[in-house]
Structures are given as C-alpha cells and as structure tokens.
C-alpha cells in the first residue's frame, strides 16, 4: 500500500507534502509524490521544476520514507488524472492541499480540491497551509 500526495510548488503544496511524509513514516508506507502539468501552455506555475521535485524527494528520503516522484500530464481534467493515478497505485490515503479561495473565485474557476474530496474512492487527508 502507498500514500499519494499532490504536489504543487507553493505553500499549500509544501504543507501537503510535509503532512504526507509524516503520515507515510507513521504508517510505514511508500509515498507517491505527484506533480501533474497541464498541456497547452509553455509555462505553468503549478508545474514543479526538477530542483523542487528533487528537494521534496530528498526530504522524504531523509525522513526515512520510501518515496517516488510521478510526473504526469493532463489535458483538461486534473481531478480525473489524479484520481486515476490513485486508483492505479491502489493507495490507502490521498493527501491534498487546500487553498483559500473566495466563493466567486470558486464559482468561476471551480475547485480541484473540492472535486477530489467528493469523487475520491479512497480516504482523503486535506491540509491547509500553516
């Protein structure tokens, strides 16, 4: 069994990974760190650089957790891509970060976190930035 965590290079993403590392070492399970980048644009602030990925992988490894980075791409639906990965690896826990967003912002942009919470068939741990 393993734990999957969605990582984006931001406070929220770092908090999610930190919580996931803690949980993985507690449960003694493998950690899957997912960074999924969107197709279509050349640059996306949610895409983690090689350095970022190496750093979080290092943090996990130094905490004594077996960890793996998964870089994937999605076209229009991050939620589906992420949950698909969770199913494929038959995870025991999904860890995601929650960010503050106004009602209007949520209406226009939608909320990936909300959809993951509602649609996931695995237990979900939602983390806020400290």
């Amino acid at each position: 069994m393993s734990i999957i965590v969605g990582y984006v290079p931001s406070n929220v993403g770092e908090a999610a990974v930190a919580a996931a590392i803690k949980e993985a070492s507690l449960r003694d399970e493998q950690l899957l760190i997912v960074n999924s980048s969107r197709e279509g644009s050349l640059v996306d602030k949610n895409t983690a650089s090689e350095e970022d990925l190496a750093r979080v992988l290092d943090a996990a490894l130094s905490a004594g957790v077996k960890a793996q980075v998964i870089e994937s791409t999605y076209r229009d639906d991050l939620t589906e891509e992420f949950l698909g990965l969770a199913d494929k690896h038959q995870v025991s826990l999904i860890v995601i970060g929650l960010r503050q967003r106004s009602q209007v912002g949520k209406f226009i942009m939608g909320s990936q976190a909300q959809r993951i919470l509602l649609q996931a068939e695995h237990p979900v741990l939602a983390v806020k930035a400290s």
Partner: protein
Amino acid sequence: MEFFGPVLDGFNVVLDPTNLLYCLLGVVVGMLIGVLPGLGPAATIAILLPMTYGVEPVTAIIMLAGIFYGAQYGGTITSVLLRLPGEASSVVTVFDGYVMAKQGRAGAALGIAAIGSFFGATVSIIGLTFLAPLVASFALDFGPPEYTALAMLGILLVATISGGTKIKAIIAAAAGLFLATIGRDGFTGAERFTFGNLSLADGIDFVPIAMGLFGLGEILYNLEERHRAATAPVKVSNVWPKGKDIKEASGAIGRGSVLGFFLGILPGGGATIASLASYAMEKKTAKDPSRFGRGAIEGVAGPESANNAAATSSFIPLLTLGIPANATMAIIFGALLIQGITPGPQLINDDPQLFWGVVNSMYIGNILLLIMSIPLIGVFVKILRVRAAILAPITALITMLGAYTIRNSMFDVLLVVLFGAIGYLMKKFGFEPGPLVLAFVLGSLLESNLRRSLLVLEGDPTGFFTRPISATLLVLFVFVAIWPVIKSAIDKRKTSSTTSAVVADKEKENA
C-alpha cells in the same frame, strides 16, 4: 555631403513622432506574436499585414520593420528560456542560451542577444547605405533578359537552399508561378484559369496567399501539435549582461555581424544560414571549444548578431533589384507592392525619401528593440503562461477579420481559409510554403520579362547567352540546378557511410 543628404532626410522621416509610435507598436506586437510557438517572422508579418493598411506607405513600412525585428527577437526569447526555438534562425541560440538560463544567466543571454542584434543590424545598415546605391545603379542597366535570369535564379536558390526535398520545393515554386498566372493576361488580355469567376478576373491577391499559407496554415498545424506539457516557470534574474560578458562576447558580435551581412545579401541566404555559420565559426576560433554547449556567451552573441545582420542585409536585393532573397522578404515585397511601391533599381532615385526612410526605420526599429526587450522580458514570461487553447482562436480571428478588412471582401477570407488548408497539407506532405510564396510574388515579373525578352530576342532563347550579365546568371542557374546531382555523385564515391550520416544529420538540423 551630396550623398548623405537623402540619408539624413530619411532620419527626419523616421523620427517623426507618428512613425516612431508605429515602429514601437510594431516591435511590441511583433514580439508578442513572435513569442508564440510556431509563429516565426514570416507568419507574424503575414498575420499582421492588414494592420498596415490605410497607413501612409513610409509609416506602414516602418511598422513592418518593427514587427519583423520584434518577431525575430521573440523567437530568441523562447529559445533561451524554454529551449524552444521559435524559428529556424534561433535554433543554435538554444545550445548555449538555454544552458545559460539554467545557470541563472537568462538575463545575460537575452541582453547580449539584444545588444548583438542591434550591433549586427547597425553594421548591416551601414553596409546597406553604401552598397545599395551601387547595386541599384548597376542594376539600372538591366533589361528584360537580365531580370528574367535573376528572378529564375532567385526562385531556384530559395527552393534549393530551403530544408527538405529539393524536388518538392521546386514543385511548390512551380505552383506559385502558376497561381500568379491566374487572371487577365497582361499581354493578350485573355482571361486565364478564372472559370468565369469575377473575383478571380484580377488575379489572386498576394495577401490571402501569404496569410493563408504562413498564418492560418501554421495555426491549423499547431492545433494538432501543441500537446506538450507545461514547464516550470523560468526565473529571469540579473537582467543586464555584466561588463565581463560584453567583453567576452564583443569579438563574437563583430565576427557574426560581418559574416551575417555577407550571407544575407546572397539570394536564398539569410538569417538561418548566417546563425549556423556564425556558431560554427565561433566554435572553431574559440580557445576552448569545449565551453560551447555549456553556456558560452559567444555561442549566443555570435549567431544572434549574425541572424539580425543577415535579416537586415537581405533587404539589399529586395530594395535595389526588386528580388526578395527569402520568404520573409517575399512577404515584405508583397506588403510594399500593396502600398504602391515597386522595389527596384529606380526606387532609390525616384523616391529617395521613402528609400532612406525604410532603411533608417530599420535602425530605429533596432534601437527600440534594444530599449524595449530587456524591461519587457517579464511580460513575455507571463505571455508564455497563457494556454495555446486560448491563443489559437485569437490569432485565427485576427487573421480572418484582418483579411476581410483589406478589401471588404468575403472572397478574400475564403481564399485565406483555403490557402490555410493548403499550407497545412503542404506541411504534412513535406512541401515548403516559402518557395511557393516567393515564386508567386516574382511570377508576373518573371513572366512579363521573359515574354518581353523573347520579343526582343525574336524567340531565340540562345539570345540570353549573348548578353554578359544574363549569361553569367544563367550559367549560375544551371550550376545551382545540377549541383545536387553532382553532390550526390560525389557523396556516393565517398563510401564511408559515417560522413554522409553526419551530413544528413546536419541537414535535418538545419531544416
């Protein structure tokens, strides 16, 4: 000071605030569109051609020059920041530019590219100022046979030098020549290939062809090609190159500028070949060639100076002979024709103000580019974040509505769409649109001169060889035409398969 009088007058024209404003607008819009993947200078100018309508000729050309330089630099930006060359002429910039960006010297790379471009263009413009009147006065003696030979040579060179299969390039050129014959025949008045369609009676306009093949064709092609994952944001710090950088790069800039100037004059030459040659030269002359590919600033400075120098000096054959040297110049040629200006040897004497206005506008365009490029890099990095899904319909709509505004004709828009499909299919089947557009532009010039020469020579084609200039040009033509055959024979004799593999690889790289 007799010679410099008109040159200085040209500066007065350019420094007019309206013209400066249009130049600025051109540089900015050119950079914005040039940054978009797949849209090189030719496509950018083609899409933005309608913007220059209804503007004074000088102003329109100044704006085009701005668009041209802006688009050129836009390709450099993506090369350095994302390892995605926007066009063929900035491919080599990727090698060292991207490594520099990775080392946190993106600013130095982009800055030196802007300085090098400026310097290269300056060298070329000075060269142009002295060379253009000479070439033009020489060309004043040209008669129909000389023009026939020159146009044929120009088309053939563009067809054979372009990447890809030579035979297919020649087919594309033939298609361009054929399209140029549609409409009323200037000699006999007969209607050719119009099929009774009134919209075709005046022939096909150049603009829909250029906008379709280069603009919409590229946009359609990108619809299927853009499924590439986003990359992490690029940090651009330390924006100005340091004194040490400039010192290191100065030799490369100087060599690249001179090399680019000469390669740009040759028909079929231009920015791409110049940048490749400059990179090779820098690597050869460097004390420590192993630095190249690992962030050597000369590897950015040389090619960037060379491609801009070449882009500028390729205006010489266009403005003095009326023969565009490459596809981008073909589009500018078309734009000039639309403005009622026929580039040729008479231009410099008939309308010196215009001629020198055009030349000096390039200079101003480059100064503006130098001033604008560095502060605006933050903006470009933001543009790169906009998804292609949103940019694609915007560029498509600009093209469609722009095409309509030219003559308020829906038929033109239809032509743009049809040529867009043709451009897409040509790309899929390995035909270059460049030779087609160039041949189309030169088509009527070639035909009328050929027929006039045949009238003069009383139908005897050997008469071309009795005139020294046309004879030389035609010998050159024959040599270029059969050169691939000779070359493949030589290659066959060299049985070592490795060399040919390397050459083949290089050719692919250049394409």
